[in-house]
């Protein structure tokens, strides 16, 4: 046993647990999107808290319910959606044979579990992320899966607790800027987008948030040729209600994009639950081509 690599065993997965990292880069022209963790901020924090290399693979747990058994002594941390009854944003150690069970999250949807050393499954096209839309990457986790753990060369950061806010319950307000097809919609539609509160539909997933609300009217009813999309796009299909693209969005899409949620707000959208309200606002928007994006 001494020479064997560390591993952990999945006892229960909850509704959906996948392996995620920073995603796939530079392959969109082949129809291969980025994918990766839905809440990138929480993902990066998790790796930092256990001294992992940037880009190490973690577990993305949807609505809690994950139960793990450590096959060796391991250090891990949970970030993102806080699960009831356990330390959060705090590194902890499990001895061989110890179990970790995540209850349902208090707020938010997605909890990240980073293990020191990273989840060391083979890469697929340069990433360990599961892309649920494209069907690429490791399989969705199942009970009984044994996950190898890699080695970290970095020291532990010496942080006992990261003070970051939990995902908010209730209403979320995010910044949006006009998208490339803003002119396919009437001015009333743009005003309506900014005025109404949208409700997150139960059909939402890693591909996107489906939002219920007043349908938006188009000024141009023509058919759009499919074009490249990025995370944060507010695509308006024929129904007139937006789909907000998240991590596993399609590389190209054929419906017009009225606006883009600014990148650092997309993480927070990825933590919204069915029934929560999402509003859009445009503070600080100064035009599409005005110099360097401010550091966040």
């Amino acid at each position, binding site marked *: 046993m001494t020479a064997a690599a560390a591993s952990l065993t999945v006892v229960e997965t909850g509704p959906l647990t996948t392996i995620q990292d920073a995603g796939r880069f530079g392959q969109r022209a082949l129809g291969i999107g980025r994918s990766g963790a839905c809440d990138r901020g929480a993902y990066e924090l998790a790796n930092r808290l256990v001294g992992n290399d940037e880009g190490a693979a973690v577990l993305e747990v949807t609505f809690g319910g994950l139960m793990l058994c450590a096959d060796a002594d391991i250090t891990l941390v949970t970030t993102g959606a806080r699960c009831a009854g356990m330390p959060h944003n705090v590194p902890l150690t499990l001895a061989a044979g110890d179990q970790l069970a995540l209850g349902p999250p208090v707020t938010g949807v997605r909890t990240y579990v980073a293990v020191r050393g990273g989840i060391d499954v083979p890469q697929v*096209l340069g990433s360990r992320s599961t892309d649920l839309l494209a*069907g690429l990457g490791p399989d969705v986790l199942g009970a009984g899966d044994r996950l190898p753990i890699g080695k970290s060369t970095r020291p532990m950061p010496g942080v006992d607790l990261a003070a970051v806010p939990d995902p908010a319950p209730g209403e979320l307000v995010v910044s949006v800027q006009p998208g*490339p097809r803003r002119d396919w919609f009437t001015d009333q539609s743009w005003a309506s987008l900014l005025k109404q509160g949208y409700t997150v539909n139960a059909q939402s997933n890693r591909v996107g948030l489906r939002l219920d609300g007043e349908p938006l009217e188009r000024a141009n009813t023509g058919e759009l040729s499919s074009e*490249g999309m*990025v995370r944060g796009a507010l695509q308006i299909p024929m129904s007139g209600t937006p789909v907000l693209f998240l991590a596993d969005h399609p*590389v190209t899409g054929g419906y017009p994009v009225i606006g883009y949620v600014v990148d650092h707000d997309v993480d927070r959208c990825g933590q919204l639950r069915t029934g929560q309200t999402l509003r859009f606002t445009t503070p600080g928007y100064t035009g599409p081509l005005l110099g*360097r994006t401010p550091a966040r």
Partner: protein
Amino acid sequence: MRVLSSGSEALLIELDDLDQVLALYAALREERPAGVIDIVPAARTVLLVIDPAATDLAEVGRAVRQMRPRPNRRAAGELVEVPVTYDGEDLNEVGSLLGCDADEVVRRHTGEEWTVAFCGFAPGFGYLAGASGGWDVPRRSSPRTTVPAGSVALAGEFSGIYPRASPGGWQLIGRTELVVFDLQRDPPALLRPGTPVRFVEVGRT
């Protein structure tokens, strides 16, 4: 050329037609502006995704406007021959849409010089454009819930091959045994932008 912003980390370059897209894409492949991490050509647009730590949208917009497109550079790479059994469920329907019979559809499809214009929809799905420009086939009014892997299909001005079983609204004219996306191969996608393609009839049933 219209330069549109697509969020804070991407520019969408809108062009008049597919030839302009391919000419700009050829130029971008040869001289990729610094800080551009992904380029997505499509039917009328090219999306440029940037690394905001390395550049900004204004700089990339300027670089693109100054580029000299490379026209007539559709084809790049080795010809891919696709053996097809032309027994698709929509073959006769496509014939009536194009005003000819099934034989003529097959003759035109195999006689056409196709080029992968761009990819999308699914990993390894190439949108093939014909040099003759004479293709205009509407999608099926109601998409199929499952289209088998290897299906050869038409929609709009494009032909395509389904890399794996998936839902789909394209008109099916045949099927191929050729595996167009294989993770064991490097690169996995056989049909990459610019690849010339020819369909070869190997049967009707």
